[in-house]
């Protein structure tokens, strides 16, 4: 049972960490692009 929980925990941790990393990276790049080429309102 411990092995099963371990396998689930590791896989979900890998997926979530990667997803959060990508979200943060995408957000910071969008902000940098916006400050470099500001949209005219």
């Amino acid at each position, binding site marked *: *049972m411990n092995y*099963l929980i*371990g*396998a689930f925990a*590791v*896989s979900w941790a890998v997926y979530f960490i990667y*997803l959060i990393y990508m979200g943060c990276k*995408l957000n910071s*790049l969008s902000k940098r*692009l916006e400050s470099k080429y500001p949209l005219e309102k």
Partner: protein
Amino acid sequence: MRVTVLITSFVLMIASGVIANTKGAIEPVVRNIVYIHVPASICSLVCFGGLFVFSIMYLIKKKPIFDYLGAASAEVAFVFATVLNITGMIFAKAEWGLWWTPSMRLITSAILWFLAAAYLILRSSFNEQGNKANLCAVFGIIAFVDVPFVYISARMMRDIHRPSFSFDSSWQSTALGLAILATIMLASTLIWMRADIEKLNEKLN
């Protein structure tokens, strides 16, 4: 759109987990790792397939979008190959009493992980876009050679790793089907996000 696909994928994963924990439970309990291990392996092979196709497309059409998609597929393949190998090792320890053994399926899966890592290292060691894209596309095509070996290794030779998994009930195959669908949706969203990051990076440089 991306958020909708992600939410749907998590809902499907939870549904698969609920079925796997109730009517679809496999005995002995450690074999339920199959619900994470198999989707991760299918996704890593599909991502390598994506890398192969996008690399060929880039070499033919020379459009940067194919290079971005190839790079994204390789990185996501690396993530899924990591999960595939870690969950495989945990299963091996629980079922066979050892973390790793030199069987053909295990060796080819480990090579898959190293090839994805090598692609990422190769990509990060270049600054000039043209050369980097060409070389990575060629490497991506060569790296795909391992994929058929992963698939046929346990089928062609006697191996400690079983070639396929047979289920006792339709609930078990439903749970696995949902898990595979959810993981493929997650992988496509991750590729989509990673390709966008490459595109934005290129705009900023």
